[in-house]
């Protein structure tokens, strides 16, 4: 292997961003490594240096997008909101989430590939834990009724996944705003506490 210029590490996020875009547009089967390299403005060999295969590229691109999502959400959750407001923020973030197409790619692959199934399960656990943590805080502070946080997270995360399908497919009835509203209504029932509009108010009430 030829010596690698030491600025290559800078390219890794660019490659991941490009991979996330190209895979979401075309699907992993129709994506060539050269397409990702072209989008990232780098060479095929640079992509292959970081990622051995397309499967690896998909998994890493998904994780990269997921990390961005959590970094963004965590930053906003740190701003001293009540548990109910934080729950509203999570639901709103999921409703607006742009990464759902890659998740669908992973769901489809998880039907046939154990590694993809494991990646899907880990991503799901991470999301459920993010919800459960807020619910736990709400129970401790007395804002929420005593409930099982894991149970609430399970129901809410499954509902949001399901609604996200229709939102991603551009359904005219189940829009991001509608998903946000249904998610909040469900959350209110689950924790017996009023869940307000998200403090960031990106989504107008449906």
């Amino acid at each position: 292997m030829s010596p690698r210029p030491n600025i290559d590490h800078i390219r890794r996020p660019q490659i991941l961003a490009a991979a996330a875009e190209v895979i979401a547009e075309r699907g992993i089967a129709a994506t060539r490594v050269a397409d990702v390299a072209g989008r990232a403005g780098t060479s095929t060999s640079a992509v292959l240096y970081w990622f051995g295969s397309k499967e690896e590229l998909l998994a890493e691109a998904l994780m990269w997008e997921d990390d961005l999502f959590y970094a963004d959400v965590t930053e906003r959750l740190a701003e001293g909101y009540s548990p109910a407001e934080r729950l509203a923020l999570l639901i709103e973030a999921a409703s607006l989430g742009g990464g759902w197409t890659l998740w669908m790619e992973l769901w489809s692959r998880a039907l046939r590939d154990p590694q993809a199934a494991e990646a899907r399960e880990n991503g799901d656990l991470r999301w459920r834990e993010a919800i459960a943590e807020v619910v736990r805080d709400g129970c401790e502070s007395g804002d929420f009724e005593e409930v099982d946080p894991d149970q609430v997270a399970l129901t809410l995360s499954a509902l949001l996944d399901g609604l996200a399908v229709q939102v991603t497919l551009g359904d005219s009835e189940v829009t991001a705003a509608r998903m946000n509203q249904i998610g909040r209504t469900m959350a209110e029932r689950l924790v017996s506490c009023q869940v307000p509009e998200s403090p960031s108010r990106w989504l107008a009430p449906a």
Partner: protein
Amino acid sequence: MSAEQTRARILEAACELISEEGIDEVRIARVATRARVSTSLVHHYFSTREELLTGALMLSFDLAAEERFGSDAGRVRLDGSTHAEALALAIEQCLPDLGANEHEWVLWVELWLRAARDPELRPVSAQLYERYRGWLLSVMEAGVEAGEFRTDYPERVADLAVGLFDGLGLRVLLRDPGMDTHRARQVIAAALAPELGVQTRELMPAATPPEPTATR
């Protein structure tokens, strides 16, 4: 074999391959081999691969919808049964029953992926979802009319139900260690019952084991 039969056989073969290998892996030559016809005959009926795949998905869902949705809510409601029992049956029919309708569910997930990437397929998915929600709405409204369900927002409850079916059904299909069909039914029953002013157990099938206390 008539032209109609040949076409149906090709579509059936395409459905099988989509379900087994994923929609992206399906090639016309393989569909031809599976259907035991020539590649040129497949091209005679379907000018492009896209057309063949869309046709296969539509056929599959038409058959499933025919069986599941029938004409109206009356179809799920057996003589003498309550509307809660009808809804319990609808919940059962919508979730993957591993082995029986698993194939149909795999195609459903493949449709999501396909339509997410290809805007041309979205009118198809929109139509399928409209029919799905409409069918559930008719189950809810029939219960409201009979005074058995109490909700001012039957559309919202129907949307909630479809969201839960897709999200939980996916986990059942993927054999998530935390979720099986029975558990999914409990979660759905517990979520829908308060919306409709009924008891959770009324939305569960008869003779169901007691709810487990552990959650994971």
